[in-house]
């Protein structure tokens, strides 16, 4: 019997050595965790988020950290697999003992991780898109990206202004596409929009001419909306032009809000509209715009450090990190519960995604004004003047 504890300690040490190649934790650090889809089908989300978090945590630490402590950032890559994400979430809570988490690239991984953080009572600022993350409100779960519901509303608002009521919808069958499709179908009636025809495409499909041909033939369609992210929308846009449908306005979603979409879709992207954060048009914002300073600063930092065009996805990570850091400052400590309360009190925070004011009933804190309706002109983003 006296033997057992000895073995235990011994082997446990071995196990630790084996499983933990993490650096020895210095005193006076506060651990912030993150689980991102740095690889896999959603890597175009996870990669910029990963880069952003790392570069800004370094910045913050260089400036002396938060509340007198340096931030130790722990990032795990779930490869887009919800089950893996769930395990890494447990690892962050149980092993790394993080005080808070900024991450969850997709709605799928986020939903899988929520129970872990709710049970552990650790604040979790998600970077996932769907509204179901914060509706119903969960005590410890927040998010920074605009919801797909808002995207639909922003698009419909613009359609209404253009007196277009009958639309066709072509959505990806991935999480993002399916979720936004559902939201749009729900929101449409309120704006007097009628979805005349619907098509879908798989996340990896390489040719959507068949679906678009059907939409082309559908009776009385005045515009087409494409909820989707990844390379799908780029191909849709190319095929759209190929089939000579450009007379009908094409609306993309905030899921393609990065320069690479314009590059991929090329000339076909001309005239495509989409709702997106101010970040994409930072330099075009009027100087009076409160967001201008923040977004220009982030854009330059990101593009100079990461050597790739800025995307709103990385911006969400930036917002999440700073919402958390501000909350930590106000909480002036590293107690998860206190931090959570302070995050909920976030007021007038100016991020790349908009001006965030959270409440007990709103764990997102953005309204439609956070979205700008953009149009692609001459291979670049342009603000659409309201009412046009």
């Amino acid at each position: 019997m006296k033997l057992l504890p000895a073995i235990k300690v011994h082997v446990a040490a071995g196990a630790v050595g084996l499983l933990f190649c993490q650096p020895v934790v210095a005193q006076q650090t506060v651990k912030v965790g993150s689980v991102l889809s740095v690889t896999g089908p959603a890597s175009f989300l996870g990669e910029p988020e990963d880069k952003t978090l790392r570069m800004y945590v370094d910045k913050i630490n260089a400036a002396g950290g938060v509340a007198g402590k340096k931030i130790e950032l722990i990032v795990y890559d779930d490869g887009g697999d919800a089950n893996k994400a769930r395990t890494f979430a447990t690892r962050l809570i149980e092993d790394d003992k993080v005080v808070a988490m900024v991450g969850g690239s997709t709605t799928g991984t986020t939903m899988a991780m929520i129970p872990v953080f709710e049970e552990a009572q650790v604040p979790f600022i998600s970077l996932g898109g769907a509204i179901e993350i914060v509706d119903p409100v969960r005590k410890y779960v927040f998010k920074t990206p605009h919801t797909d519901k808002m995207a639909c509303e922003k698009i419909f608002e613009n359609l209404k202004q253009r007196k277009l009521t009958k639309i066709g919808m072509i959505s990806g069958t991935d999480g993002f596409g399916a979720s936004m499709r559902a939201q749009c179908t729900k929101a449409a009636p309120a704006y007097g929009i009628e979805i005349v025809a619907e098509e879908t495409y798989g996340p990896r499909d390489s040719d959507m001419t068949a679906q678009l041909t059907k939409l082309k033939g559908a009776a009385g369609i005045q515009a087409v909306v494409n909820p989707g992210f990844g390379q799908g929308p780029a191909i849709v846009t190319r095929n759209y032009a190929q089939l000579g449908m450009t007379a009908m306005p094409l609306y993309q979603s905030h899921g393609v809000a990065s320069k690479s979409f314009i590059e991929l879709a090329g000339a076909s992207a001309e005239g495509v509209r989409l709702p997106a954060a101010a970040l994409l048009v930072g330099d075009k914002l009027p100087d009076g715009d409160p967001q201008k300073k923040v977004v220009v600063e982030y854009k330059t930092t990101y593009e100079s450090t990461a050597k790739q065009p800025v995307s709103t996805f990385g911006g969400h990570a930036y917002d999440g990190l700073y919402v958390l850091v501000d909350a930590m400052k106000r909480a002036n400590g590293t107690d998860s519960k206190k931090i959570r309360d302070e995050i909920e009190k976030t007021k007038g925070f100016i991020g790349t995604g908009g001006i965030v004011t959270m409440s007990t009933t709103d764990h997102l804190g953005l309204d439609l004004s956070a979205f700008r309706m953009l149009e692609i002109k001459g291979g670049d983003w342009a603000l659409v003047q309201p009412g046009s």
Partner: protein
Amino acid sequence: MPPWFGHRYVTLALLAVTIGLLPLFFPSTYYFRVASLVWVSAFAAIGLNILMGQAGQVSLGHAGFFGVGAYAVAIGPTHLGIPVWAAVLAGAVISAGLAHLVGRPILRLKGHYLAIATLGLGVLVALVITTESRWTGGPDGMSVARLTLFGWRASGSSTWYWISGGLLVLGAWIALNLSETPTGRAFRALHDSEVAARVVGIDVSRFKLQAFVIASVYASIAGSMLALMNGFINPDQAGFLHSVELVTMVVLGGLGSVVGSIVGAAVLVTLPQLLTVFQEYEHLLLGLIIILSMIFMRDGIVPTISKPLARRSRA
């Protein structure tokens, strides 16, 4: 007493002891989580190994049954209000039914043709799960009600460690039982020579079907367990890549070896946890490890290691 009698219970005892003592070495409940994942995957792998290792029939669509089980416990309580334990059974029954229905025609196929047919089956199941979002929550998945038995609510990593661990012992016991019985011998016989098996009176298609159904039930139950453990499920678990992962577990651990399936599962579940510290080199290393271990342990980890031991014991 016949010689094999001993082996079976020695193996089981070792397994039980391992499961029982392992927690002593866990620094945190995170290890319970990882271990539970191993047990659940191992459970599915053991079932698949009955089909692949004993009966010699490949299935590249087994995650489909895994998904059926998982979504049974997700949909049953949520949409139909049936108790969770009943949903687990329902999932198993549905999987068995599906396997029986589809197995009859496709198990006539041989080798790669069977592989693609089962693969197709898996893809179809995954596609339905992804698409019928009104029931399944679509690609983002849906949350799963907690398992409650007589008012007791199963939650927390350690609880699930014991549930999945106990289940694994049961699954291993049945698999070990099988191999030395008329049914098990029939499986192994048709694996070695179908024509000879038929000539000694074995109804080959019937036994292939039995193996397929057994394996599907194992997968289904494993799926249910994972869904309940996570309190959440999404279509990835029913997808092609998960099917490939299961097959890899079986082959890596060793075809026909129950212990092998457990080892294979342990390797494939823990590797990503270990390799994650290597950042973007993770996948490179994973691929490399799989290739090398299959080249140098072509019969699988456990058979390759145990063979010399066995020889020594015989001498």
